[in-house]
């Protein structure tokens, strides 16, 4: 797939909670190439510390070339990113990696936990503009607290999706893990897309595996280049080989991934 380096301009930098941010970048060239599930490598500093770019899923795109990131500050790079303000520029490489795939004309379920929600909005937008109506698909989203979940869930709702929610503290929706919302829904869908913490993805992969429903999972790993050059971004495949997340992924058929490690 084609990817490019683009110097984007920050159109808005919103702080959603203490540590969650949404960045709207004007990056028309990358947006014109982007497919749901792909990611960008972001330069978070103009100096050499931190040295490497940071990978972020493409959260959403707009028709006029805006690219959205949804991210949580966890360390050096994301903290620097959160200090940027409107009008500043951010150097991006993307779109990178493969994308979610939909084999058409049936109902699916999107499950996201925490920042794993990020790639699902773009995917939901894509699905809603396609052959099926949003109403027939299911969206399950989970997070720690309502403050974190509400603003993100709204975006799915405005696409016309019926969204079921779960929070760790019960402040919104189901009190518990979002994966607990899946069992009653699973028999009625023909495909699942999951992104979130590994335990969530593993649990969802297991549930799908048991009743043989196809499941695509978006994987995270440490990356140096995002370009397939460093060979650093490995995960264990179920076939005993290593998979490179930036090249073979980030979207994997859940069956290809060795979840037990």
């Amino acid at each position, binding site marked *: 797939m084609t990817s490019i380096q683009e110097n984007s301009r920050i159109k808005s930098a919103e702080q959603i909670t203490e540590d969650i941010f949404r960045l709207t970048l004007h990056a028309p060239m990358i947006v014109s190439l982007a497919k749901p599930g792909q990611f960008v490598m972001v*330069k978070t500093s103009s100096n050499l*510390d931190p*040295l490497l770019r940071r990978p972020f899923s493409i959260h959403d795109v707009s028709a006029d070339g805006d690219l959205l990131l949804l991210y949580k500050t966890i360390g050096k790079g994301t903290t620097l990113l959160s200090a940027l303000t409107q009008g500043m520029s951010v150097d991006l490489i993307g779109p990178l990696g493969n994308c979610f795939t939909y084999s058409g004309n049936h109902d699916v379920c999107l499950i996201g936990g925490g920042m794993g929600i990020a790639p699902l909005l773009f995917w939901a937008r894509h699905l809603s503009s396609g052959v099926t109506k949003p109403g027939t698909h299911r969206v399950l989203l989970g997070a720690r607290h309502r403050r974190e979940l509400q603003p993100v869930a709204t975006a799915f709702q405005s696409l016309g999706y019926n969204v079921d929610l779960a929070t760790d503290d019960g402040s919104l929706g189901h009190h518990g893990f979002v994966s607990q919302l899946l069992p009653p829904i699973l028999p009625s869908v023909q495909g699942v897309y999951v992104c979130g913490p590994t335990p969530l993805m593993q649990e969802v992969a297991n549930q799908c595996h048991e009743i043989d429903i196809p499941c695509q999972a978006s994987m995270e790993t*440490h990356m*140096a280049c995002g370009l397939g050059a*460093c060979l*650093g971004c490995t995960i*264990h495949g179920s076939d005993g080989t290593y998979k490179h997340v930036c090249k073979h992924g980030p979207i994997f058929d859940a069956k290809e991934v060795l979840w037990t490690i």
Partner: protein
Amino acid sequence: MDHLNNQSPVDLAVNIGGIQLANPVMTASGTFGYGREFAQFVNLDAIGGIVVKGISIEPRAGNPPQRIVETPCGMLNAIGLENVGLERFIAQKLPYLRSIKCRVVVNILGDSVEEYAYLAEKLSEHAGIDGLEVNISCPNVKKGGVAFGTNPAMAQAVTEAVKKHSTLPVIVKLSPNVTDIAAMAKAVEAGGADAISLINTLIGMAIDIDKRRPRLANIIGGLSGPAIKPIALRMVWQVANAVSIPVIGIGGIGTTEDALEFLIAGATAVQIGTANFYDPGAADTIISGLTTYLEQHNETSLINLIGSLDTGVLS
């Protein structure tokens, strides 16, 4: 030699032990894939040379994850020499490399002198390869796993074997994890090396303080990036003063200024490594930066710059 055409009056061409490069900017093994990965970010035809990821006789799966850790101004990698192996390299990677205009150097690695010799022989049979770079940072399994690159006699033996079995120019790539880099350089020069490249990565480590486990599955890994540049530059200067074959400088080079430091210290060419990851257009930027520098300093040929360091009395 159409790739030597150049609008600028400045001549960037250099010769590395028989390999004629349009300019001294190469990309380092393991950091530039097989070239294709960077086609969208740099003009591959304009680069001096590409050194491809280290090739072994058989494919290698490499180390389990986690393979990389970021460190201050650097990174550790423990890829574990994952590569497609000789056969698939020739079948799947070489054709594309042949289609681009820049020089192609194949980095080779083995567990024994015989493996290096075999690779050298086989690769010499294929068109489209301009030179070999011998990675001697690998453990010699027959000698209890001591790295070839930490023992002058072993390094010399590998060099001799590769030279004997190959018709291609041979660059030997030194490990910096030694007390006396000049001694290593002299040993490989004595072994017949046509050129020397340095440095490979320095051995480092990082620990997850919450899990109290190494961050790398391999425990230790190779440190690269700007952090190591001062060490690399010192070693390149020492080696350039110790041998009479050309030296290629590697280690933390990410800007034109970095490349110039190495050239002035005595390197005939440079390789860009880790910088390709955070700045995939680095090679292009540096090539045009070198031209600008030469123009500004009224130099017509890059050759005049090489080893021009003045170490006369300083105050």
